[in-house]
């Protein structure tokens, strides 16, 4: 009996992992389409975050698309706000707004602003885009949750370039001091920032030691391995005395071979031909030699 149950749990996990992988693939394709249509945006950091965003929005986050301001929802703060299109893609798929609206990204009057705007778009928890500020807002939310005795959690995704910002460490210090176990940081360590590799601009290593020194539980994963992502998101829920950081080792531009780890693709939209090539690769229909 017990063995049978274990088998079915393993099967369920496998099915979940498969489903989320497929969602991540769809998010990446939608992301490329949106950026191409908008004619500007940030492919690199959206693609590196896609797997984690899929796991959060299609599995982990306790949210209600038909009631975005539900008081007991989990909060997700995208501190690296320039990567918001990958979140828009998830919100639309969940029904927060019609999918047609995705193609209005960055247009005058669209709620889908170039950077997240919580006033214009329900489902966005915090307006961001100036790097280094998101974790402070997430800490404030987590303290509020504690004051209210609520059980919702706050997730905050940050960039590795962004980790150069002093305010981020001020927030980390406060969260550690207060033992905010309802706060989960996610570091999308994709190795590249705007102008160059993080290591060459201003190295943030040893970053694990830094977070630990600030009183955080740290779990390192391959951020493109869905099983590891799920394990990490489950594990952080078992930590009860401190905030947790998922250090997600990723590849900037993941999924489009010729964008990967190339700073050129930090903040430039693909043109129609490039988008078609990118999508073919993501769909697994690319014909060889097309890189």
């Amino acid at each position, binding site marked *: 009996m017990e063995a049978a149950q274990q088998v079915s749990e393993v099967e369920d996990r496998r099915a979940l992992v498969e489903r989320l992988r497929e969602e991540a693939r769809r998010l990446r394709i939608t992301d490329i389409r949106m950026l191409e249509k908008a004619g500007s*945006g940030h492919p690199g950091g959206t693609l590196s975050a896609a797997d984690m965003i899929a796991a959060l929005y299609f599995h982990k986050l306790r949210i209600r698309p038909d009631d975005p301001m539900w008081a007991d929802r989990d909060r997700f703060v995208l501190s690296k706000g320039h990567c918001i299109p990958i979140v828009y893609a998830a919100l639309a798929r969940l029904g927060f707004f019609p999918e047609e609206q995705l193609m209005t990204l*960055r247009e005058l009057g669209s709620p889908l*602003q170039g950077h997240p705007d919580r006033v214009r778009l329900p489902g966005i928890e915090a307006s961001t*885009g100036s790097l280094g500020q998101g974790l402070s807002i997430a800490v404030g939310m987590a303290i509020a949750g504690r004051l209210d005795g609520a059980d919702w959690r706050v997730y905050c995704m940050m960039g590795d370039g*962004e980790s150069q910002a*002093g305010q981020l460490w001020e927030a980390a210090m406060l969260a550690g001091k207060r033992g905010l176990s309802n706060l989960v940081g996610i570091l999308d360590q994709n190795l590249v920032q705007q102008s160059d590799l993080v290591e060459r601009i*201003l190295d943030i290593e040893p970053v694990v030691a830094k977070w630990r020194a600030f009183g955080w539980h740290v779990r390192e994963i391959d951020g493109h391995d869905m099983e590891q992502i799920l394990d990490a998101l489950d594990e952080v829920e078992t930590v009860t005395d401190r905030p947790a950081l998922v250090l997600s080792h990723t590849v900037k531009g993941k999924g489009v071979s010729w964008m990967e780890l190339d700073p050129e693709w930090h903040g430039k939209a693909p043109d129609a031909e490039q988008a078609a090539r990118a999508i073919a690769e993501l769909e697994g229909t690319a014909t060889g030699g097309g890189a």
Partner: protein
Amino acid sequence: MAKATREAFGEALVRVGGDPRIVVLDGDLMKSNFTYLFRERYPDRFVECGIAESNMIGVASGLALAGKIAWASSFACFLSGRLETIRMSVGYQAANVRLAGTHAGVGIGDDGASQMALEDVAAMRALPNMTVIQPGDAVETERCVEYLVEHEGPVYLRLTRQKLDDVNPPDYRFELGKAVVLREGSDVALLGTGATVQEALKAADELAGEGVEARVINVHTLKPIDHETILAAARECGRLVTVEDHNVFGGLGSAVAEVLAANGSGAPLTVLGATDYGQSGKSEELYDAYGISAKHVAEAARALAKGS
């Protein structure tokens, strides 16, 4: 030839860069603010600070206090966002720091509000010893950067992402604090700064077709502001329109209003500028949506003419 003032800035820095006192600081935006040109030429005097603008500003101050001419550059919003750091580490110390804020205003377009400085002039103007300059084209930017080599004291230079038409002649000479009359006229005065100078010029063309002769004034120095030229315009034209890619709470319009009011001028003034935080869109679309394109300048001038 149309050029973004951020690009002219980066090129001018290289040209003056032979001066060993000059040190350039960047916050992971060297390709956007064109300081990569200086880095290529003078790598030893380029300090990459990463995404950490408060620290960059403080380091610039230290360099200046130790005898360097420190140029710190980032998007205008990320500099003015560190107002108290600038107040304490730059202004109050009278440090010889130049802050170059690129990507000013709604003119940046698609990226939207979070990257749009629309209050930076107000913030910088509020610091007592801060000089605030906003060039209207490439040649003005170049002459200004050259002038600033020998200037003493803190300076804020506001630059555009988008290309600007040439509004000045090639032999243009930059004079700090002296607004430039680009076009004579005595029916109405149109005052622009930075990217809106070209809008004022286009509006004047439009008005000329209707028999209205507009005086166009390029207010490149927002602080100290040119009292004489503004008061002469009020006297001789009777009415004024200011236009800025900045909000109306403390920028060019406010500075002009202060001059008029303090000198007892009752000349009617219309202030064109943003009244919110900005949003995504195409640059030209946003100039229309925020009422700061040539069309709106001309309209404001007509309305003023009717009212008197």
